[in-house]
């Protein structure tokens, strides 16, 4: 256990130093995305009411965390795969899962400023109060890790690194436009609403809403569905990084 913890700390340091040149830029992008979501998206609604505003603001953390997990992380991994750097990393006497957790930690930390700012700016801009439950921390952590592990599974599983980038772009487009994150499920056609019953996106947004506001959400169901997706994505990633060519 001590050895695993030591490996985790060392790999965390390595990942933090490796990403140091781009981390400030990534954090700045996260902040811009946060402002874009909570203010920019409200321009779609000419007469924004408090309910719509709450949907926008509480949907923003899910969007930011998924953007990080499903776009930024896979892009960096795809670049590393194309350069062959994983051949080196996997040759080190470090459990691959430890490396993945250290990497995931970095991505979760990178997305935190954007999430916090989106909530503060959004609540102030739309003039309503957040009601933050202690469950907000595990909820946001679960959303972030699920996004990162799905991103990892795509990035490590794609036959070619370029395909991973393409796949993540399509997924983000689907999440932004065709998912009930910043609007209610009732606004979707039935078939798309049914599809979302099996996907984690709607439940991620529910986790945000249920732990950051007084909106009525089935948190148990949301934790369960997103938890299952998180474990499944983790297991797929685990299998992918342990396979030998």
């Amino acid at each position, binding site marked *: 256990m001590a050895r695993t913890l030591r490996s985790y700390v060392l790999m965390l340091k390595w990942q933090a130093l490796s990403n*140091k*040149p781009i981390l400030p830029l990534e954090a700045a992008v996260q902040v811009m995305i946060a402002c874009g979501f909570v203010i920019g998206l409200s321009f779609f609604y000419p007469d924004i009411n408090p309910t719509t505003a709450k949907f926008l603001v509480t949907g923003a953390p899910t969007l930011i965390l998924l953007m990080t997990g499903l776009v930024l992380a896979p892009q960096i991994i795809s670049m590393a795969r194309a*350069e062959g750097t994983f051949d*080196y990393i*996997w040759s080190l006497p470090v459990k691959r899962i430890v490396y993945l957790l250290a990497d995931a930690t970095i991505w979760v930390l990178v997305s935190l400023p954007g999430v916090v700012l989106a909530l503060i700016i959004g609540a102030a801009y739309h003039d309503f109060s957040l009601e933050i439950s202690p469950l907000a921390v595990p909820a946001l952590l679960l959303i972030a890790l699920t996004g990162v592990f799905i991103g990892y599974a795509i990035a490590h599983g794609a036959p070619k690194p370029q395909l991973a980038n393409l796949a993540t772009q399509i997924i983000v487009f689907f999440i932004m436009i065709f998912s009930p994150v910043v609007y209610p499920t009732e606004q979707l056609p039935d078939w798309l609403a049914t599809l979302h019953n099996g996907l984690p996106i709607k439940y991620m947004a529910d986790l945000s809403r249920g732990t950051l506001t007084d909106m009525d959400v089935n948190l148990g169901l949301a934790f369960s569905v997103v938890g299952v997706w998180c474990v499944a994505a983790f297991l797929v990633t685990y299998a992918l990084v342990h396979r030998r060519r």
Partner: protein
Amino acid sequence: MNRSEWSITMKTNGTGDKRTVLEIDRVCKSYVKGTRVNDNISISLAEGEIFGLLGPNGAGKTTLVNQIIGLVKPDSGGIVLDGVDIVANPNYARQACSFQAQTQVPINGLTTMQAIELVGRVRGGGAGGVRKRTRELIRELEMEEWSRKTAESFSGGMRRLVAFCMAAVIPGRIVILDEPTNDVDPLRRRLLWQQVRNLIEKGSTVLLVTHNVLEAERTVDRLAIIDQGRVIGTGTPGSLKENGSRNMRLELILEPRSEVPESPGFMQHTILNGRRMIVKLEDDDVAPAMQWARKLKDTGVVEEFSVGPSTLEDVYVKMVGNSDALIRPEQEIENGTYAS
């Protein structure tokens, strides 16, 4: 030349009483059905030796290394390290081997010191010992100027030196170096080879993967030559050269734009690389060859010439016989006409 004439089957590890550390036994690997990247490869490394794995690009060297460190699984055959089956237990291989990859090492954002120290700590070294060893490597390789700079600005050669230090800081039972001197300047190459020898003194065994035959000849104790996935020769540089039959070579540097000279009788095996021409000689042919070369120099056909013992490169060219794949592309000529 029939390839089999050059092959030497090694029944033992060829180093007398030294203990075998790594045993690669009839390893086969295909990525695409029907195309074997490694074809029945058997090699054994003895404790404390520098073993060279030579071969042209695409010969299957890196695939073999990737099987040793558990990135690639053999289709058949076995790999045993210190008595442990590392095909079944790749984690043991990663503990026991330190590795300088041919590919990029993820060191952007890290200083030279940080990169080397991190790997040293990851490999189980204590903070003080790793720092001391890191400083020693940086000093010995004359890299002090770069020790606190981040790697983004490093040349390819400097990145390779850092990667070497990362493999050498806490060396494994086996240190695998995949093309360690690519892009490294000539002075630091010498320093690097000294450090490779130091690894042996520290108790490691070195597997050196290269296509640089000249450097390998000066460095390795034994070697295997791989071509098209198969081992086509194994032994010491000396034993391989003896099997090359012709023991001497005449090297001519032609004057620019001069014609390839007429071929005397002894000029049966000739290799041409730009203006450089190498003629294999029997011992009896040395005197007439010198006379012939002097005459060519006097008539302005040849700029300079030299006679010396055959090199491993000569043997390698004959064995591999694939001129396009060499680090110095060479064309074989027979009877004075190009036959490439």
